[in-house]
């Protein structure tokens, strides 16, 4: 007996998804020869792989991820950063400065103070140690302007879309620069508040309706309508 649901059907934890020669993907697990869902979400059958696109998750860091975080603490050799995850991230001075850091001479808060928002990349994370960040790459570092919106990290793939289709459309239609952190924080900077507001409304709508079909077309219509109102 193979597949038990249609693609994109809503499933809950404990729902039996497939039986037999299958592999468990994200948010699914195998018990004996059966595949079950472990989170509420939409089921996807991709060949032998069965996975669930979750409707709500939290952010688990992974190396290479672009994240937006907030400086929470200053330590002797670096900063503790809140990246909207169960694990606090560490940004060491060697990953922030281009020159050697001397604690007796340098003052950490001159570079990044508590409350500052940063755009950073995760360089390492495993079960035993907290994630390490870096800002020693082009375009990373302190965020100086724009607005930040928070969404569930589960919706980030939908906001980006297939090969960036959704986010590229949003950037074009709203004239805003949008940077998506994998941890559910999104930086929006436009030339005017109205443009930023339109982008935020669109992102909130994507978050709410992420699991429905035909979303891109509805977002385009919504942004066009909002822009029509602004220009009048």
């Amino acid at each position, binding site marked *: 007996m193979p597949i038990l649901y249609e693609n994109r059907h809503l499933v809950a934890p*404990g729902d039996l998804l497939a039986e037999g020669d299958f592999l468990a993907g994200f948010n699914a697990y195998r018990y004996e020869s059966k595949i079950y869902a472990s989170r509420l979400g939409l089921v996807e059958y991709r060949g032998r792989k069965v996975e669930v696109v979750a409707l*709500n*998750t939290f952010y688990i860091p992974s190396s290479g991820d672009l994240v937006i975080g907030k400086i929470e603490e200053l330590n002797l050799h670096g900063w503790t950063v809140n990246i909207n995850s169960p694990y606090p991230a560490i940004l060491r001075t060697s990953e922030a400065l281009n020159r050697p850091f001397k604690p007796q001479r340098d003052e950490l808060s001159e570079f990044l103070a508590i409350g500052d928002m940063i755009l950073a990349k995760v360089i390492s994370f495993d079960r035993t140690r907290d994630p390490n960040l870096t800002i020693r790459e082009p375009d990373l570092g302190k965020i100086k302007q724009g607005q930040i919106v928070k969404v569930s990290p589960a919706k980030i793939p939908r906001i980006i879309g297939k090969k960036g289709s959704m986010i590229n459309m949003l950037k074009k239609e709203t004239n805003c620069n949008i940077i998506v952190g994998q941890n559910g924080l999104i930086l929006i900077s436009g030339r005017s508040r109205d443009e930023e507001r339109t982008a935020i409304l669109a992102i909130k709508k994507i978050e709410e309706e992420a699991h429905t079909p035909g979303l891109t077309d509805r977002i385009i219509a919504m942004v066009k309508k909002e822009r029509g109102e602004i220009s009048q």
Partner: protein
Amino acid sequence: MTEKMVLINEEGIRTDGRKPSELRPIKLEVGILSNADGSAYIEQGKNKILAAVYGPREVHPRHMALPDKALLRCRYHMAPFSVEERKSPAPSRREMELSKVIREAFEPTIFLEKFPRTSIDLFIEVLQADGGTRCAGVTVASLALADAGIPMKDLIAACAAGKVGGKIVLDLNDIEDKEGEADVPVAYMPSFDAVSLLQMDGLLTGEEFQQALSLAIEGCRQIYILQKEALKAKYQAIKESVEVAEQE
């Protein structure tokens, strides 16, 4: 001694008009608190219970953190106004016991080993009590955990059975619990046919216990269906409203 109360009449109808193997009416709602990561609310007969989940998050105090898995903490608490006589808000011996057994009921279903060094905090607040609050608490907490996006092997449904007026009945209310002969609360994972909480208060013969257990499991299966409906309801509603808008 005062005359014994009639808890079940000749036609087999109980004090609140139910048949012996009938559940109380259940209303479930998911995601009703905005400050918690996950939340749910249940009304089961006159029981009214809220559950909230935080986490996984950093453990405070730090020394409680476990290196190999997440720490699950549970607080079952009854509001001072939840019973007829004011209940002291301080945790009683009974509440501490229930917090422990509820926590242990959830430990096998949550993938705790996926999130080492974090804590998952579960709060069960009984606003109004009418018997069977530990079971209703487990039922609602399970939804709050799923709402928080915490990966689980299965939802847990819980329900009690017991012996009242010489008969085995399902889902005891407060009077039946106090005046009846026995009470058997059961928490159950239907996809695995596994029991994760089983207690007994009172006296039953071996045969009666078997009967009560299978009746309670039957009740859990009914509750499980309601739980899944409640969990999916919010998203199904958005999907339907979008589809309606599309057609217009």
